[in-house]
């Protein structure tokens, strides 16, 4: 099972080439081949959302995508959210609202929330909860996460 495949992706705006085994997931490639360990493995079955990334504009669980499937596509991860040393408003609001405890689910929530706000800049509480229902958090009870996303939306809207 070697027979590695050459893959080229655009990762957080930068062109990246790598070799991977066909059986390696995009998550494994990001973490173990490219060293981007911000995306987390919680289940490997697409149920927890800790590995959420944006693949060609679509929110996916990177554990359910094979590395070679990403060839020619753009991949955005939590590592690409901050602009230089400036945090994305979602990252800033997660900190201000104490929307994380252990922090293992946080990258996935941030990526999912960013996809939501990119499409729907002014969501209701229910729309936030609907958009984040694929991300499991066991520490916070979601209250502060939902508040942080609503507050980030307000700030991004200039409210």
């Amino acid at each position: 099972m070697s027979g590695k495949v050459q893959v080229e992706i655009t990762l957080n705006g930068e062109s990246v080439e790598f070799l991977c085994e066909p059986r390696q997931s995009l998550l494994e490639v990001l973490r173990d081949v490219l060293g981007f360990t911000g995306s987390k493995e919680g289940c490997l079955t697409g149920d927890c959302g800790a590995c959420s990334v944006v693949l060609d504009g679509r929110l996916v669980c990177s554990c359910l995508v094979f590395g070679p499937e990403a060839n020619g596509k753009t991949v955005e991860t939590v590592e690409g959210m901050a602009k230089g040393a400036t945090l994305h408003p979602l990252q800033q609001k997660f900190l201000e609202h104490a929307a994380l405890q252990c922090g293992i689910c946080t990258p996935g929530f941030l990526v999912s929330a960013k996809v939501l706000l990119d499409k729907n800049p002014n969501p209701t509480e229910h729309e936030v909860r609907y958009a984040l229902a694929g991300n499991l958090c066991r520490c916070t009870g979601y209250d502060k996460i939902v508040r942080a996303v609503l507050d980030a939306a307000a700030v991004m809207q200039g409210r």
Partner: protein
Amino acid sequence: MDVQEHKFKVIGTRPIRHDGVDKVTGRAHYGADISLPGMLHGKVLRSPHAHARIKSIDASAALALPGVKAVITSADFPKLQSGVVPMGELPMNPLYMSMNLLAQDKVLYDGHAVAAVAATSPHIAEEAIKLIKVDYEVLPHVQDVVAAMKDDAPILLSELRTSGAPEKSDKPTNTASQLRFARGDLEAGFKAADVIVEREFDTAMVHQGYIEPHNAVAQYNANGQTTIWTSTQGAFTARDQCALVLNIPAGSIKVVPAEIGGGFGGKIGIYLEPLALLLSKKTGKPVKLVMSRGEVLRATGPTSGSHIRVKMGANKAGKITAAQIWMAYEAGAFPGAPVGAGCMTTIAPYDVENLQIDGFDVLVNKPKTAAYRAPGSTNAAMGSETVIDELAEKLGIDPLEFRRINGAKEGTAQPAGPKFPRIGYLETVEAIKNSPHYKSPLPKMDGRVVGRGVASGFWFNAGFQSSATVSINSDGTANVVTGSTDIGGSRASCAMIAAEVLGLKAEEVHPVVADTESIGHTDMTGGSRVTFATGYAVYDAAQDAVNMLKQRAATLWKVKPEDVVFQDGVVSCTTNGNESMTLKELAAKLPRAGGPVQGKASVNPRGVGPAFATHVVDVAVDPETGKVDVLRYTAAQDVGKAVHPSYVEGQIQGAVTQGTGWALNEEYYYDDKGTLRNSGFLDYRMPTTLDMPMIETILIEVPNPGHPIGIRGVGEVPIVPPPAAIANAIHQAVGVRMDTLPMSPPKVCKAIAEKQ
């Protein structure tokens, strides 16, 4: 200081946590993120049977696979004696721990580890474990706690005898221990009752459900020293356990605590660390082991399912006259269910004169249970708090008023005997009674029936050992070093305590969680103890630093140290005019004033402050499907002193959500063969954003007299009331008394149908 009167400057504020930026940018390193040059990857072969004898293990085909470097079985472990070693919240037995890490002559549950492989990639390791041939003789198994106590039950451990039994027996048994707490005159108490309620309850085994699977990386060196990187609730606890099971000196192991992705009690015990160490020793290379979600559910430590019988009586005045409670908890495959805690916490919020509580720790063919947030207390409260609701209903007394009449206060004897110090239980009852939630009418719903329920909970909280250093930097900022894994914001709370003492801003203190060679012994992050006990050590260490600062200033001013005062970050002299210096100014002069300042403290504080909570919940029940939705939730809790209120609220909100999952959905579902059928997050159904409303919290600050700033633990007690509160709300909605967890749609439907 007088905590009631003291005006805090930092404590009680909500600064951004110090490790926050790393965690929102993906830079924080959790155990599975660690990678070393030349590292091998391990996988564990696990039993497909609930109970079987291992006749032989043949690893030759696995070892022949290219890329496979080593295989270990229990034969690689030293032979150990059975015995009990105290290890934080739950005592541990090295022999049983070793038998759980890799099965010896028998496998005792589906998922029990049998062998481990190290290979050049995780995929090769996975292929290799499939090539290991294990010849099993399948044995009859038992998974129901009551069935496991019967004389004819299959026996898990042939040498086990019941400890604490009134009559000594030499008959093999699955009952590892039994205990009784009794006082007063039970018969007279029930005779004095106007109403008696008697019910039986079953609660399912549930898992802590942390999102990060267990992991460990070990590097054994030729000099016999090993470094282990792991996501653990206790670096020292992990080190000591590894040393015990491998029979090597604790000093030969350094544990570096990685960031931890949740634990809730489940990451105090060890599963992978000794395997990684042995594989590294065999291969001479670093070895990494990471569990899959299925392995986490099948083979780590969930908490006990239980069978509980409650009989309670009360008189017309609403006073509980007698309580008789019997509880059997599943230990899993080895002794150690939290049934003692169950006995000591059930009805602890009440002053009950006549009581008898019996507890049984029972082996079943399921994974060895571990601590889970207030271990044992949630099951127990499901029994006692729903029976109390029924007593109040039958007597026509408001359930909160019933709790007020019977509520424990300072001086009330706990079920186990000791009297409570100053506690805030009645304050939580009062707070819920006066809450906007309890005062508001129930919402109206189309097609669904709504109900409201309340319940209370108690947890001891823990003290245990902690160490801390506080050092002053050349710019007058400070570093705080502790050995406590930060599982939910304790870096922030420790830094804030030091900042308060030193007169600095929270941001001017830099908290560090150190490895086992860089700080004094510190017990695990558990028992709601870190902000209490490690916070105590930080407070003392900061005071020590202040004393040193006063000495340094005295040297500069050529006065006596007792003539120097330190307040709000300024040192001033009481005898030599009005000389004063800020901490920053003094810090720059330390090289000329006697040298650097590092305060230190090691504590084992006794003044633990117990925690009480009272919750109210509104639910909507769909009578057609039996589905229960939580509409509104308010939790009141005596939190002592909230150091960082946001993270105190977060503990409560998270615990309420876990308790809601326990109440409504979560359960270990085994088939007839004893195989776990829901070992993934799709079928082991934890609450999502859509299952929960916002969770209102009421923080009541009754300072703990046993702590210099009044802190009491807050993390565990809020998981205790939710199942009972939800059961009581379901009763108000549809008139059925639920006596089983989870209260999943089929069970609620059945209960409604049986009533009609």
